[in-house]
């Protein structure tokens, strides 16, 4: 059994547990909106990170994050667990909220580019911190060369921690396509970094 197989098994098992557990949380929240709190706690950071990557202003990101959860709470009775995973449903709301936001504000500001507020604060030693900063700056520059679709893929996979399956549900694309696009994006990033 390769390390990859073992990792896949661990990941798949934990994903199943998470989904089962999440199903219970969703059912509880549908029965009693007071139980929505658990879902909110689970997703607030991930939703915020996704939105923060897609709008230029921190305040807008906070507003939209709040909107997403209010909308989700209102719409929860209509969510059907046999459709898409709850996570994908929630991120669809977030994605639509961001799209609406851009439409309303007619923003032309580039997004998905790791805003300053998302640069990690390191408690490592100065040398490591400097290296980290350098690598993030390089990453930032590399991301600028990606098209919005690929930047969104990265945001959904790394900031929102969605699996390929969940991303495919959010974007409405086949799982295989999303997987292949993500792998190609990684290869491209790796290639650009090694060129630099």
């Amino acid at each position, binding site marked *: 059994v390769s390390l990859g197989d073992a*990792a896949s098994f661990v990941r798949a098992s934990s994903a199943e547990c998470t989904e089962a557990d999440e199903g219970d949380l969703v059912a509880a929240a549908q029965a009693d909106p007071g139980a929505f*709190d658990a879902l909110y706690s689970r997703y607030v950071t991930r939703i915020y990170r996704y939105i923060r990557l897609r709008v230029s202003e921190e305040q807008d990101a906070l507003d939209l994050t709040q909107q997403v959860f209010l909308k989700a709470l209102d719409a929860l009775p209509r969510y059907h667990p046999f459709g898409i995973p709850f996570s994908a449903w929630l991120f669809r709301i977030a994605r639509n909220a961001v799209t609406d936001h851009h439409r309303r504000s007619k923003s032309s500001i580039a997004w998905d580019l790791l805003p300053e507020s998302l640069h990690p604060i390191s408690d490592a030693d100065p040398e490591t911190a400097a290296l980290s900063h350098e690598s993030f700056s390089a990453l930032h520059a590399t991301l600028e060369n990606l098209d919005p679709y690929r930047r969104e893929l990265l945001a959904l*996979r790394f900031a929102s921690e969605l699996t390929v399956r969940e991303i495919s549900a959010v974007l409405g694309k086949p799982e295989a396509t999303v997987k292949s696009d993500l792998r190609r994006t990684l290869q491209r990033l790796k290639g650009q970094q090694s060129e630099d």
Partner: protein
Amino acid sequence: VKTEAELRARYYDIVEDGADTGTVRLIETLDTAYQSGMPPASFVAETRALLRQRHAGPSRGRTVLGLALPSRARPFAGLAAVLLAAVLVTATVAYAANSILHIYHPEQPGPPPLSRLFWVPSLPPYPTVRYRTLDPARAAHESGYAVAYLHKPPLDLSTSVGVDIFPHVGWPPMVQPRLTAPRFQGLAVAIRSVVRYRGGGHTVIVLLNEPSPKAIRTRLLVLGERTIHLSNGEDAWASTDVSGSLPFIRPRFGAVQVLAWAHKQYVVSLFSDLPSARLRDMATDIAVIPPNADPRRRHFPRTWPAPLAPDRLPGRLRAVISGAATYEQRGPKLTIRYLVNFGSYSQGALYGLDKWQDVQLRIGFPPALQRHALTRAPEARFGSGAGGTGGNISFNVRGLGQQEIARLLRSGMQVRLTWSEQGKRRGQSFVVPVIAAKDCAAWDPGCQSTIPR
């Protein structure tokens, strides 16, 4: 820091088995970079509170026959400036002809006479309350002011007893007539005394209110959402406040029980986190001491201990202190008139609004209405104690009937206030109840306001 195995496990669906170290390092960089941002803790808590308010819904606060009572019924609510002043005034007029309180019985059949209703139990905003550590009976006797208190407070609530008395200054014609429609002028509730008992982690507040002569003369007073009978044979009115706006009685959105009844021209109320059955027992043990008939003999003795500092909520800023809105639908056009008051009740005073800059108000409606509004609060409305803004929002709603609109607006509108203070951008959210304009009643500050019209 995640190990390589952890990274491979986490990203099993995009990292191939044979992926080299360079790929894993890239994954590590992306993982670290993308997962470093966190929403501010205050924002997370604020949104959590907002969600709780939302699912509790304004209509689950104090209600009369299912109608959301206005925020004025809550301690921070109403037109802040008007209410603040109005609650601090007292009557100098005689009550001989106006001493009967007409109480509304929520159980009575038929639609409630909304235009005649007037909500009474009204706690003062907490920064204005400065308790003195005094025996309430002594306080009443020595000051000559009206005080209501527990005759024999239960031992478990006697750890700390505080008394605050609000001196009589007379009913004003109206504090800010410009802000109040003529038919509502002269309607006010005075606060006479607030006595707080604490012990065993619980709080009981005995409040003595006095409605204004005009309110007594012209209104049906609403004291609670259900009628109950006390063991002494008298009626009282109970309600439950889940608005979370009584943090010094029950923090964190716990339910606060309220029991109120009429006594001569007064309304006595008990507010507590204790079960309503205990409040019912206490209600028959309340002493109400009238004021000294000679106004010259009403005073605060110099020998009294100094008042304690007002209660504070560390780290908690209540920026939006009240709000009210009404809606009206004519054909496809939906008009919402709103009024939002903001200030700070967390710092012991209604402080420094003059230090706020670039105040913005974002108003969000239920998703089906697909409407958001952003407004910049006019600087002119900032005073030294409270500020506020109001306006109309009109938009077309197609395909939604009156019942659907009513259903959608039942959960209120979301108001998010943001401002700059000392170089930092801050924000806070609030749910403002929205009621049909036709259901406006005297106790609704949104209806009283003339600003949005």
